[in-house]
């Protein structure tokens, strides 16, 4: 580690001590150790550390992960709702890390951040998609159904999650389409007539939800920590909202990370409905499969715009605009009015 990097770590260690002290008034003798950066996502930088302190006559020790906002990325979402949702879901049976501390304005650690308890497991989803990982993947997929059913049957009002933007079974689809279309209009670098047409199709075919639930928003392989065949934690709640739970099911089955090779979508939905009591109508399934292709398209275009504008220098998202072609082809391929194979 260079001297500059070592100094930055020392500064951050002290900042974390102050943050923990400010939010844990009874804590004495706070120590922060083993502070090191983890491989980060595109919107959050992750740091691992161990915190310990005296409280009520005993020494408390906890392994932690800090997620700190990166420079501009693919999405720019506020931290507080995400943190509050994670905190509210404690004790529901949904596997989540314990929410510990938050610095919503970057008052202590320079940029907005929150700290979760470290959970054991790996998020290595390519390993689940390889043929040799099929047995473990099947087990994880079976647990993923249970996690989806549990998450979507949480009584979100009773958990105090009604601070999330309100919606209804009639308007859930429209709200999501409007949200992502607004981002598209803000971040596109060219007119993209195909995407304009896709949003029009989505506006003209909005289904009614069976019920309104918590929707994770990024529910998939890659956003979970697993050990063996069990999921220890569902991660990355930055797109959490209230809406149609079918959005999560179809997102999990996007081609990039789909567990379809070990469990078909049909089997997943059948098991899910049995466990949750939530009906999954074919119209909702089709709508959200199409919607999710657009959602990922807009996430990618937003990242490309951030790099283009110089608001981030993260090379990983620099060329994301080139990835959307395949999502758009998938959209056209699934359109009921049209089969691309017959297009002239």
């Amino acid at each position, binding site marked *: 580690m260079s001297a500059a990097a070592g100094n930055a770590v020392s500064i951050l260690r002290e900042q974390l001590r102050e943050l923990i002290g400010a939010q844990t008034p009874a804590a004495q003798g706070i120590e922060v150790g083993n502070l090191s950066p983890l491989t980060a996502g595109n919107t959050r930088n992750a740091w691992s550390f161990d915190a310990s302190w005296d409280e009520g006559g005993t020494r408390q020790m906890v392994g932690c992960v800090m997620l700190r906002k990166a420079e501009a990325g693919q999405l720019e979402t506020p931290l507080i709702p995400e943190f509050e949702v994670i905190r509210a879901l404690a004790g529901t049976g949904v596997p989540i890390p314990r929410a510990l501390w938050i610095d919503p304005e970057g008052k202590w650690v320079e940029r907005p951040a929150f700290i979760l308890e470290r959970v054991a497991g790996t998020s290595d989803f390519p390993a689940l998609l390889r043929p040799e990982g099929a047995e473990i993947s099947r087990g994880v997929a079976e647990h993923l159904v249970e996690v989806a059913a549990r998450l979507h049957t949480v009584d979100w009002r009773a958990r105090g999650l009604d601070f999330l933007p309100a919606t209804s079974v009639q308007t859930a689809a429209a709200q999501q389409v409007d949200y992502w279309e607004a981002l598209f209009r803000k971040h596109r670098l060219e007119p*993209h*007539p195909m995407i304009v047409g896709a949003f*029009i199709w989505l506006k003209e075919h909005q289904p009614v939800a069976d019920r309104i639930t918590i929707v994770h928003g990024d529910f998939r392989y890659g956003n979970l920590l697993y050990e063996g065949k069990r999921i220890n934690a569902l991660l990355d709640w930055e797109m959490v909202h209230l809406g149609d739970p079918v959005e999560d099911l179809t997102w999990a089955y996007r081609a990039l990370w789909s567990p379809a090779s070990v469990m078909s979508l049909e089997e997943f939905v059948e098991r899910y409905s049995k466990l949750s009591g939530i009906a999954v109508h074919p119209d909702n399934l089709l709508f959200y499969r199409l919607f999710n292709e657009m959602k990922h398209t807009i996430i990618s275009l937003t990242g490309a715009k951030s790099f283009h504008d110089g608001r981030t220098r993260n*090379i990983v998202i620099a060329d994301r605009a080139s990835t*959307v072609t395949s999502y758009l082809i998938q959209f056209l391929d699934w359109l009921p009015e049209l089969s691309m194979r017959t297009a002239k």
Partner: protein
Amino acid sequence: MIKPTIGELLSGVAASLRERVLPEIPAGTTRRQIQAAIGIIRRVALVWDKTGPYLYADNEDIAQTLERMLPVLERVAAEEGNERIRVVHTKSRQVLERSTQSGQPYPSAEVLGTRNLELQEVLADMQEALHESPAVKSVDRNELKATLYALFHRMLTRELEITTPARRP
């Protein structure tokens, strides 16, 4: 200068980075950045000389398709007195009439790109006009939509050769 081509140069740079630089970098954020840069350089190396032909073909296809759609738009505007569609029809015709593509034997990629944006705008505007005009007869609407979706398919197929050249058979 013809040799080395830009593609050969970039391919060589990507190979050097992959073979010489990457092994020296431990796993982590910096390595991910270098890997992403290598991926971008490799893509650009494969498509650097295809951008002009791609845009030329795209512009030709969009313009010819719009020419075929104009009579339908004109009929809708006239028969139904639809002002929004009339505006789109007029704009489409104006854009098609001021085509610079045929006037220059070797237009630059920049000129072709500007033209492409102009044509894209017409396609986007037309769809919004149709969406905002529920009174348009379904037979006309369906004809226009089918033509547009078939065009989008061709546009995306062309685009795929630029955005994911390595996946080509």
